[in-house]
């Protein structure tokens, strides 16, 4: 072929790509082929050659030996495409065409060349055994040894040695040429067989399939085959015996029996078909996609299938069972085709919708109802009861409560009731066609004890499990009310059996042995109070009102209650104002009668439990902490000078502390001794109950889980139930029989001063100190704040002796709330016991809260005496900076310097952190409720308050800032900071059921400055302060009121995501600020961030709430930043602060203070 000598190197590296051929390859041809390939000559060059062959094949019919052309074609293909079969070479199709072309040509049937083509073709085929069978069937190659050798070789290779043996023998029997070679191969095979005996289990089916028409006589065939295995090896198909009748079963026989003749002759196998044909299942005809439906297949995973029936669009097949979700499994849809189906995520809580077990699916409405505790209530028996009867019930209930009833009951506040306040107060509420039914969240036990409690009118009785549990737990407590009930029960009261959580605490307050009979607990009847003697009634009123909360069985009763309470409160107010709760001045107080004083000022560590035992004959479940702590160390001997009360209070009920003349009208002779009237000496109670752990673990006074914290009745209940009582607080003066009056005079005077029409001074005398009005600090309809100067006072009373100025907040009507919370803050922060907050942190927090001095309760108003901070609020500061910048330059600067803002932010965060740790929410944080203290001279507050020697020295040592920022407060940094004011909306969490995640509802009109929860009428707790913090920080940074927006995609996640509309300046510490605002505005979401979603229905946010820790981290970051970068170029905290100081002092001078 090739004249030149071909080097093997030319295709050495291609040898793996050469398909071995029986006859071998021509080296020259290979070299040529690979040279062409190496030259990257496209195989298209071969097309003309190929066409030529095709043309020749077409004309080959006329040739004597048409096969020759094919063989040439094949040889060429082999040479050109040494790689063998490929799409390019078209070898397979060529073989196929050739093989099928001549399959009916008898003269080629035993042509070795033709058989070789078949053999090659079979090598490329998927099912060689079938092909061999076909050839046998068609009598092709049966005279050639090659066929038998190949067939046997194939069978041997797949482990069918018996069959291979059969093939050899068949070939020898058929005397295939060359017979000698075949025999030789057979003997070689037998040797191999001996060396490697066949597996006895290997299939022994005949090499030649037995052809048999459908439904022919199977038995016969198998019998024959078994009897004569030799015959079945014959390539002749067994003739079916179609006509054999069967006795038992009539076999269908094609009437045209002869039709199967030709098929039989050919064994029903006319053509083996092409490879492509045989693969047709694997190919898809190209069709237009339009109008096609994408079939969705079952997911392959059986694990998910078991739980979840997958939707199929056909809609015809329907799962027999409810789809059930154990896990919110994602349906693994898949579309046949190239596009992969996206995973789906149910936004709904599928766990809840498809509860586990056999329970029926729950619609969203049911879940909502369930969450509200409204699901599956029994329909009341009395169906046709018209709503008007509700009215009657209410009326009768209201009338049944006698005027003497002094009890103030606090009605359960419910989510519905609270949030619907606006609705309830609207006009059509007046004549509601249907009485609104405030639905209770945690009420309602069908009492097994008292059937009277069953509702008489159609009501909804709500059973939540939690409520039931709670109520059962209440019943499990000793029924200490029994005695009282028997003794005092006048008329049946629907609430008789109700237990009160506060009973335990109340015992601590019930010191009055003489009043045992009347000593109401929460369950005694409303009407019994008026029977008591007068001098006790005050006391009772006071104490009974502490009973506070009554569990109502049904809401009708509750609603009735509502009215009752309103009346009662009026009565209470009357009683108090006319009699004076604290006016036991008529009593001759001697040693013996002190015991009966309601003043909880008796030393009786062990008395309270004793009394309880005496009284009820049963051991009480008294919180030990409370019993021992509250009054344990009280000594009555301590007497402080400022605890004096004017004697003439008794004589002149309408007298006023206003001093008509500038000169104080104070007469030491007329003051009564502290022993008689002062509620408690200050030092003692100050030391008490300072254990924060105890505060957190004491029993809640308010057990509602959803409360309006501003509600008067709630507040009163708290104030009346706090232990120790409010009266024991230092600086609390209760003179409700006295009217302050003259608030008009104050206003007028202030007005006159403004108009510079100076009038005479207005003085007010409170507890021996005369205060002179200076000016008005803050206006307000209910609580104006005035600046007073102490004119004449015992110098020792002015503890630090520094400032004679006091801010006095006049509240109409009187309220002790702010005083209470501020005192509690001081008390808890200065507590010396083991609490989680470091002492240093507490002290600094204490410095950052304005100091409360005294509270004077009058009949018509209250005076809250506070320290005066003259440095203005954050709001003032921002305005000052703005005004200053306008003055000095044209462009107004909005906001404070970043470092200053950060400094105040740290102060704020620290303060709020401490407050929250002690269980107090400020509730009304805003820029104008946050004073700054940056001027020197105000630093010693906490030293006066706390004699904490170790740090006091540190403080004293540095009154001016000596160094760059120190987070620890050293080097004078303690003296700078903030001072929170206005605790009028503060919330003492510890009196609520914080363990069960009490939440609050605001009923006031909200503004943009209120937190998102309030604005959206959702319950809140700490969020109020977080939002307040954010608003203050926002004001400092941007000089604007905070504006909050939600991300535009409400469906994005579970909760809305809030953010401020302003964007941080480029050079700010954006990361820190962003994180801070993120935390503050999305506190709940942030607290849930680590918790997987959809974890059952009760995703109560409070578990990881409050986010105090994370805020602490945030603060630490800021402190670190200020310490390291506080004095870098471009910003200097000290310089900035100094600038502010100058501004503030200048402003102070301007204001003439």
């Amino acid at each position: 072929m090739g004249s030149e000598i071909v080097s093997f190197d030319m295709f050495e590296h291609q040898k793996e790509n050469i398909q071995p051929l029986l006859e071998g390859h021509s080296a020259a041809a290979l070299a040529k082929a690979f040279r062409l390939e190496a030259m990257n000559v496209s195989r298209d060059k071969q097309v003309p050659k190929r066409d030529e062959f095709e043309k020749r094949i077409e004309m080959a019919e006329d040739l004597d030996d048409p096969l020759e052309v094919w063989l040439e074609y094949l040889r060429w293909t082999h040479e050109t495409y040494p790689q063998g079969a490929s799409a390019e070479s078209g070898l397979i199709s060529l073989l196929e065409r050739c093989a099928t072309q001549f399959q009916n040509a008898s003269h080629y049937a035993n042509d070795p060349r033709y058989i070789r083509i078949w053999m090659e073709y079979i090598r490329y085929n998927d099912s060689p055994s079938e092909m061999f069978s076909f050839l046998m069937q068609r009598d092709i190659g049966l005279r050639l040894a090659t066929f038998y050798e190949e067939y046997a070789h194939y069978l041997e290779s797949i482990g069918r040695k018996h069959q291979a043996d059969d093939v050899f023998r068949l070939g020898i029997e058929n005397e295939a040429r060359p017979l000698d070679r075949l025999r030789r191969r057979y003997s070689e095979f037998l040797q191999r067989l001996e060396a490697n005996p066949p597996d006895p289990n290997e299939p022994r089916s005949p090499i030649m399939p037995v052809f048999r028409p459908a439904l022919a006589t199977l038995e016969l065939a198998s019998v024959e085959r078994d009897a004569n295995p030799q015959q079945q090896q014959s390539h002749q198909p067994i003739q079916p015996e179609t006509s054999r009748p069967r006795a038992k079963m009539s076999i269908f026989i094609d009437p045209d029996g002869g039709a199967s003749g030709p098929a039989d002759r050919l064994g029903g196998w006319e053509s083996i078909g092409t490879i492509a044909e045989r693969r047709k299942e694997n190919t898809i005809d190209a069709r237009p996609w339009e109008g096609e439906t994408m079939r969705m297949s079952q997911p392959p995973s059986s694990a998910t299938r078991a739980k979840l029936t997958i939707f199929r669009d056909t809609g015809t097949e329907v799962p027999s069972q409810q789809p059930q979700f154990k896990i919110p499994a994602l349906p693994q849809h898949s579309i046949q085709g190239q596009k992969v189906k996206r995973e789906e995520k149910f936004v709904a809580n599928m766990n809840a919708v498809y509860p586990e077990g056999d329970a029926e699916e729950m619609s969203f409405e049911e879940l909502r109802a369930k969450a509200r505790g409204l699901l599956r209530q029994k329909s009341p028996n009395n169906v046709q009861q018209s709503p008007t009867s509700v009215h009657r019930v209410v009326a009768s209930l209201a009338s049944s409560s006698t005027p003497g009833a002094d009890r103030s009951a606090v009605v359960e506040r419910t989510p519905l009731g609270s949030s619907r306040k606006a609705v309830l107060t609207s006009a059509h509420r007046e004549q509601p066609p249907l009485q609104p039914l405030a639905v209770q969240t945690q009420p309602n036990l069908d009492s097994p004890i008292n059937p009277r409690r069953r509702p008489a009118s159609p009501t909804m009785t709500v059973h939540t499990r939690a409520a039931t549990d709670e109520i059962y737990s209440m019943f499990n407590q000793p029924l200490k009310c029994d005695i009282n009930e028997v003794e005092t029960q006048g008329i049946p009261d629907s609430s008789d059996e109700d237990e009160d959580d506060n009973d335990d605490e109340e015992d601590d307050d019930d010191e009055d042995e003489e009043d045992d009979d009347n000593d109401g607990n929460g369950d005694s009847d409303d009407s019994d109070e008026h029977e008591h003697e007068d001098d006790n009634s005050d006391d009772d009123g006071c104490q009974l009102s502490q009973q506070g909360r009554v569990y109502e069985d049904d809401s009708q009763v509750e609603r009735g209650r509502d009215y009752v309470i309103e009346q009662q409160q009026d009565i209470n107010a009357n009683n108090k104002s006319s009699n004076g709760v604290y006016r036991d001045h008529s009593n001759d107080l001697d040693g013996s009668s002190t015991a009966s004083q309601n003043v909880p000022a008796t030393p009786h560590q062990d008395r309270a439990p004793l009394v309880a035992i005496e009284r009820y004959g049963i051991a009480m479940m008294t919180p030990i902490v409370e019993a021992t702590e509250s009054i344990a160390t009280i000594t009555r001997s301590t007497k402080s000078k400022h605890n004096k009360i004017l004697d003439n209070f008794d004589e002149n009920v309408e007298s006023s502390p206003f001093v008509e003349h500038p000169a104080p009208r104070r007469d030491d002779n007329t003051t009564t001794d502290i022993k008689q009237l002062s509620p408690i000496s200050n030092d003692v109670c100050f030391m008490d109950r300072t254990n924060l752990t105890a505060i957190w673990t004491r029993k809640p006074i308010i057990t509602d889980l959803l409360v309006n914290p501003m509600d008067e009745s709630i507040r009163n209940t708290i104030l009346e139930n706090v232990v120790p009582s409010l009266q024991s607080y230092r600086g609390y003066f209760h003179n409700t029989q006295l009217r302050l009056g003259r608030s008009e005079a104050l206003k007028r005077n202030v007005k006159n001063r403004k108009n510079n029409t100076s009038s005479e001074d207005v003085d007010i005398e409170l507890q021996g100190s005369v205060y002179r009005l200076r000016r008005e600090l803050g206006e307000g309809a209910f609580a104006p704040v005035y600046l007073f100067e102490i004119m004449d006072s015992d110098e020792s009373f002015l503890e630090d002796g520094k400032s004679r100025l006091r801010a006095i907040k006049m509240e109409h009507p009187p309220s002790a709330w702010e005083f209470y919370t501020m005192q509690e803050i001081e008390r808890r922060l200065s507590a010396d016991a083991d609490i989680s907050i470091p002492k240093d942190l507490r002290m600094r927090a204490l410095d950052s809260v304005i100091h409360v001095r005294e509270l004077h309760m009058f009949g018509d108003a209250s005076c809250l005496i506070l320290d005066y901070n003259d440095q203005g609020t954050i709001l003032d500061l921002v305005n000052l900076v703005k005004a200053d910048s306008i003055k000095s330059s044209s462009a107004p600067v909005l906001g404070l310097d970043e470092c200053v803002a950060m400094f105040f932010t740290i102060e704020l965060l620290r303060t709020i952190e401490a407050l929250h740790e002690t269980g107090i929410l400020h509730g009304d944080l805003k820029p104008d409720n946050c004073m700054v203290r940056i001027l020197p001279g105000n630093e010693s507050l906490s030293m006066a308050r706390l004699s904490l020697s170790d740090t006091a020295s540190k403080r004293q040592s540095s009154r001016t800032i000596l160094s760059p920022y120190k987070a620890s407060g050293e080097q004078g940094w303690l003296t700078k900071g903030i001072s929170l004011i206005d605790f009028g909306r503060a919330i003492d969490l510890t009196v609520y059921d914080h363990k069960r995640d009490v939440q609050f509802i605001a009923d006031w009109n909200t503004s943009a400055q209120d937190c998102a929860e309030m604005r959206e009428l959702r319950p809140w707790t700490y969020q109020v302060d977080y939002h307040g913090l954010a608003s203050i920080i926002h004001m400092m940074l941007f000089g604007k009121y905070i504006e909050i927006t939600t991300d535009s995609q409400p469906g994005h996640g579970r909760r809305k995501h809030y953010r401020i509309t302003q964007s941080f300046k480029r050079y700010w510490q954006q990361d820190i600020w962003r994180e801070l605002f993120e935390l503050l505005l999305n506190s709940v979401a942030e607290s849930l961030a680590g918790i997987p979603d959809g974890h059952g229905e009760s995703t109560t946010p409070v578990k990881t709430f409050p986010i105090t820790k994370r805020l602490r981290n945030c603060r630490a970051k800021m402190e670190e930043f200020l310490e390291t970068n506080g004095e870098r170029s471009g910003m200097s905290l000290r310089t900035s602060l100094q600038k502010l100081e100058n501004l503030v002092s200048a402003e102070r001078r301007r204001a003439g203070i």
Partner: protein
Amino acid sequence: MSMQFQLQNAPVDIISSVRFNPSERYSSFLLASSWDTTLSLYDTSVENGRLLTRVDCVAPLLDCCWDELGRSAFIGGLENRVRMVDLESGRCNVVGDHDDAVKSVLFHRQSGLVVSGSWDRTVQLLDCRTNGRVHISRQPHKVFSMDMAGNLLVVGMAGRAVHIYDIRHMAEPFQRRESSLKHMTRAVRCIPTGEGYASSSIEGRIAVDFFDASPDVQAKKYAFKCHRAAEDDMDAVYSVNALAFHPLHGTFVSGGSDSLVCFWDFKARKRLRQYPRYPGPVQALEIDSIGSALAISYGGDVEIGLEGNTSGNNGIVIRSLGPGEGKSKV
């Protein structure tokens, strides 16, 4: 462009149902039942709406409907009762009693009967004139949604069951079907022409089915995906809470928990338009009888958490529909 406005004085809790007055004259009067237990009547013809009356009931309401004349309303809810509310006097009488919450109330004009479906697995026919129960029909599952077209009543239930009744022969269902959707039925609404009904599920899908049982009509039924949002590599599947047909054009709107409302042409199988996102999950939809306004009530927490809070973000938006709006474009 069409205009839309928020109704003032909207109920403060989730609005379970909004219904326009069926009469042409008062077609702008809208009833809204809410979980805050109130039934409110608004005049939506004035800008921002006017609250005409509000009736405070004893328990959260799940559905409301008008009577024939549009003078009274029927309400059902967690009180387990069906009440008739005289909207002029505010008086309301109990006309039906169930053992569980009443999820759906309908008024059948031709017979003057009230049809109420409840979670107690019954559908009742009530005659408010006699305060009597005409018929009680036991269902295999809790009733979740019902609608009527002519005399055919479609009851969508739990367990994906859908029963179709001829209201004149309530003894036996006219047809018993299984929902074409694989998940819980959320709403069913009948095609105004009475040829079939649309149903939606919690799984972002709407099916259109036909009453005619003949195979070639049944072949027309189909379901399609909607109210889904691509989130990263996943589709967030929202519940389709509400459906409402356009009385004139025969198209319908759907509202989902994704706070979106879409107009669909079920014949052309096309979406006609999608409105901008509303402030909260869409709870109820209704188009008035003259096809001039669409009421959308939104609110409530997204149904994921279901902590049952009384979310404040509730409201009703009235969207006035232009003459061609919602008209099939084919």
